[in-house]
């Protein structure tokens, strides 16, 4: 226990907390009861004290005479501290790789992370062996940790952003690879390994057939984490990507069933026909049950998001929690958690996206990406660490044959299955495609974790060693060579283009056309059922799960709105209006201007100049507004409300009324300043709308009260206008769609001077949100 002067203490605490992350694991818990209030605040800011701790310090206070100003208790925070350190390490590594461009171009990130893991594991082991002989303190890839915390974010990210169209169009092929291919791999590898084990020289006589099959089922599955890590970097075309990736997702059910089946049997020792039959049933239960659970949670999640209009900040959490619950619920029954998670994400997404605000959508996107990338990084690092930590039994025959058999069975499986599949596919898989699909069959951490779950025997360590070798082989050799091979074979790459409105229209057009042609032919194929599903979705499901007018909004319209929004966001991000002309809409807005100008010639040059001045002087204000802080809500989203023209007109009329009311009553204009914008959000919407201006007692009511509705009106107003034109009008305020509105504003009759000023404010508000 050290005793110091409070001031010195403060400085030491802050410096230590900032440096502790990088240097040692030294941590200071400060129990301080000095009268220096600022000191207390400071320490609390750095470390939150739990109630027990405070109690503890109080007792301390009672018992000892000399009050401990500084005490040391690392054990108390050890666990979260270590976790944070690991994550920090992982992230710093990730950061570091991208600073060395040449390395990250050649070697995939996953390889580098494994190497880092190996190094860290080595260091820990070296340090540890001095202190004690047990290697228990070296962290390994804990199976529970992996399946409960690390895997779900990655799968959720993958499932939520699954390119659904490609996925459904290739579903047959994907299922074929995932189910039949994995079964083939498992049995081929298992059977052949048993054959290998019979060789006398290998000294593997104690490995029986069931253990071999168990090993085969563990090693056969393509791993989504590894596939994602490698395929994300090589930008392969969507078809190949979805084939390999989809397979890695859907083979989970097969792996789970096979694993449990063989594990059970290897304990029992015998297999009967009934068991095999039950295994087949189990497969359907596991996969379909997982999907069902996912769908249920997805629908509930979508339904919940219908009601989040007034508490936007918690929206993203619903998505995460429902998905995670789906995963956990599936795991409760040993169903396929991965399939459940994917089903949940896929089912939830279209409805949730229609309900939530754009900001929440961005949050969801970023959080998913962040979590999944952290998980992925940790998984690979831990994989490296566990390799160093674990005991190994290196049997040359076993390991080498495993690697060779994995490759052979994968190639045979893909070629054989493609031969069958190509008979049914319209777009045939070429030789190149087959090669990439076969070569992309990477193994990863799921196999390792499953192997880790086996009961502790000599065989387990041997299996684990072989599994790790296969993982390293696929991730390092295949992962590093796949990029040059893709370039060598000139496999079509993914084209980085945004979806255009043309594509959307033509795609829908073609869907309708093909459905029509199928109907003419009396053939009930893919398009027919898709059309049926769409119709059902439109008539029933959307109404239940999407709130407000968006439920009846056609897909095309929502797509268009989203596109406009994206462009507007790009504008904001680019930060200057000078970039505008590069957008297609800007180039082509000019011809229409002339038409509009003919229609509304009522704006004089002087007015135009005034408006421009207003615009210029007020553009800055939006920026300031964005910066202001609120715990419960962000800046009001200008795109949230529905954008229908009717509503817009109605609201403008209402606003006009309210405004004239305010202008006649001396309202405190200072109150319409920024802070209220956010407060307004908490007020129930109806309260804002039903403000009765018939009373005419605006003067007697509190001056703060009348102003918020006015402000919210302004904002809503701008929302309405903002949508159709997008960012177009910002540069050209006197042209395009802005013009009629201005004309209306300016020609409004009313108290001249005040009205003018107020309108100016209103205009400023609306115009500035254009830029936003």
């Amino acid at each position, binding site marked *: 226990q050290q005793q110091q002067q409070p001031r010195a203490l403060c400085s030491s605490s802050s410096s230590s907390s900032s440096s502790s992350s990088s240097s040692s694991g030294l941590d200071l818990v400060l129990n301080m009861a000095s009268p220096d209030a600022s000191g207390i605040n400071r320490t609390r800011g750095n470390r939150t004290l739990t109630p027990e701790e405070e109690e503890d310090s109080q007792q301390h206070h009672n018992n000892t005479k000399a009050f401990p100003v500084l005490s040391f208790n690392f054990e108390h925070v050890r666990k979260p501290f270590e976790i944070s350190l690991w994550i920090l390490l992982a992230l710093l590594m990730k950061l570091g790789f991208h600073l060395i461009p040449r390395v990250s171009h050649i070697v995939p990130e996953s390889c580098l992370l494994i190497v880092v893991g190996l190094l860290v594991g080595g260091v820990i082991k070296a340090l540890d062996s001095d202190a004690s002989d047990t290697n228990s303190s070296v962290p390994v890839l804990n199976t529970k940790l992996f399946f409960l915390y690390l895997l779900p974010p990655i799968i959720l990210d993958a499932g939520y952003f699954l390119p659904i169209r490609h996925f459904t169009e290739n579903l047959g092929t994907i299922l074929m690879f995932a189910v039949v291919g994995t079964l083939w791999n498992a049995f081929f590898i298992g059977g052949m390994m048993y054959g290998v084990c019979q060789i006398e020289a290998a000294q593997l006589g104690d490995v029986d057939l069931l253990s071999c099959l168990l090993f085969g089922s563990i090693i056969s599955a393509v791993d989504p984490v590894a596939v994602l890590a490698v395929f994300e970097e090589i930008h392969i075309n969507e078809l190949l990507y979805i084939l390999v990736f989809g397979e890695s997702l859907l083979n989970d059910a097969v792996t789970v069933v096979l694993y449990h089946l063989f594990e059970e049997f290897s304990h029992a020792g015998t297999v009967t026909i009934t068991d095999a039959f039950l295994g087949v049933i189990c497969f359907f239960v596991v996969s379909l049950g997982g999907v069902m659970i996912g769908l249920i949670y997805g629908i509930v999640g979508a339904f919940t998001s219908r009601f989040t209009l007034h508490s936007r900040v918690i929206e993203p959490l619903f998505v995460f929690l429902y998905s995670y619950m789906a995963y956990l619920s599936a795991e409760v029954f040993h169903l396929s958690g991965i399939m459940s998670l994917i089903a949940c994400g896929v089912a939830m997404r279209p409805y949730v996206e229609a309900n939530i605000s754009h900001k929440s959508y961005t949050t969801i996107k970023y959080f998913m990406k962040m979590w999944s990338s952290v998980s992925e990084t940790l998984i690979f690092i831990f994989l490296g660490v566990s390799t160093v930590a674990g005991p190994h039994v290196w049997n040359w025959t076993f390991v080498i044959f495993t690697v060779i058999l994995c490759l052979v069975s994968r190639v045979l499986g893909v070629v054989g299955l493609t031969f069958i599949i190509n008979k049914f596919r*319209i*777009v045939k898989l070429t030789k190149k495609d087959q090669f990439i699909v076969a070569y992309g069959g990477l193994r990863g951490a799921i196999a390792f974790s499953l192997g880790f779950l086996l009961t502790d025997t000599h065989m387990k360590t041997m299996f684990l060693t072989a599994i790790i070798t296969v993982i390293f082989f696929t991730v390092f050799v295949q992962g590093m060579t796949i990029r040059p091979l893709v370039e060598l074979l000139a496999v079509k790459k993914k*084209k980085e*283009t945004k979806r255009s409105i043309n*594509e959307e*229209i033509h795609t829908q057009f073609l869907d309708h056309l093909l459905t029509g042609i199928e109907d003419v*032919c009396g053939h009930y194929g893919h398009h027919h059922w898709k059309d049926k599903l769409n119709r059902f979705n439109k008539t029933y499901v959307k109404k239940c799960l999407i709130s407000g007018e968006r439920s009846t909004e056609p897909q*095309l319209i929502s797509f268009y709105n989203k596109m406009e929004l994206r462009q507007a966001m790009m504008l904001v991000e680019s930060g200057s209006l000078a970039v505008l002309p590069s957008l297609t809409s800007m180039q082509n807005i000019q*011809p229409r201007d002339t038409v509009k100008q003919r229609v509304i010639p009522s704006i004089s040059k002087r007015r135009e100049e005034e408006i421009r001045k207003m615009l210029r002087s007020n553009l800055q204000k939006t920026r300031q507004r964005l910066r202001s802080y609120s715990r419960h809500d962000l800046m009001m989203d200008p795109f949230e409300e529905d954008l229908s*023209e009717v509503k817009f007109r109605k609201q403008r009329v209402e606003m006009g009324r309210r405004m004239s009311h305010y202008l006649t009553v001396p309202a405190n204009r200072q109150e319409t300043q920024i802070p209220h914008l956010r407060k307004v959000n908490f007020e129930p919407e109806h309260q804002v709308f039903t403000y009765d201006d018939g009373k005419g007692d605006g003067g007697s009511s509190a001056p703060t009260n009348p102003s918020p509705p006015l402000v919210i009106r302004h904002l809503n107003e701008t929302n309405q206008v903002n949508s159709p034109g997008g960012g177009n009008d910002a540069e050209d305020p006197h042209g395009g769609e802005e013009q009629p509105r201005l004309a209306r504003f300016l020609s409004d009759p009313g108290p001249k001077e005040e009205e003018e000023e107020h309108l100016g404010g209103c205009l400023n508000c609306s115009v500035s949100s254009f830029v936003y």
Partner: protein
Amino acid sequence: MVVKNCLLLCPVFVSAVSHSQITRLYSRFTSLDKGENGTLSREDFQRIPELAINPLGDRIINAFFPEGEDQVNFRGFMRTLAHFRPIEDNEKNKNPPTSEPLNSRTNKLLFAFRLYDLDRDDKISRDELLQVLRMMVGVNISDEQLGSIADRTIQEADTNGDNSISFSEFIKADDQRHERTWKHRLDTHIVTYVTAGVTNAGSTGTR
């Protein structure tokens, strides 16, 4: 004659498979033919319940009828459907010298283009696009909003500034962006080997 060329170029397809396909389509044709006179009228098509609710139903039906005619025989029926036959690999290599088969990529796209282009001036004007949009999105969207979408669409594709989409722009717009989407989306399984059907129907028709 297009049909003849196809017959010459793809003898492979006159096989048992194609016959079963033709038979299937022929039985469909006869079941649609309520008048039992060997031809289909517009009413026959409109009787298909799914087609009646298809937003593009009328246009699809029109596509089956040559200009100014009210009846279509089996040959014409197959001729239209032949547009939807997938492109076979071995066909691509042969590189037809005289004329393109009906299911070539250009012809597929031309078929789709014609569905937009009502007045057959080889341009999709703003009005024509608006009509299609209106059909697809339903009635509860304001004209202004739809108009802005149409404008945007034309702006995106229009390269020569005539405020409409010509066929070359139509192809190019999709070519650059979504080669895959277009190339294969127009293929459906049902009409595999239909060209063979056309050739057969054609030859029986001329005989």
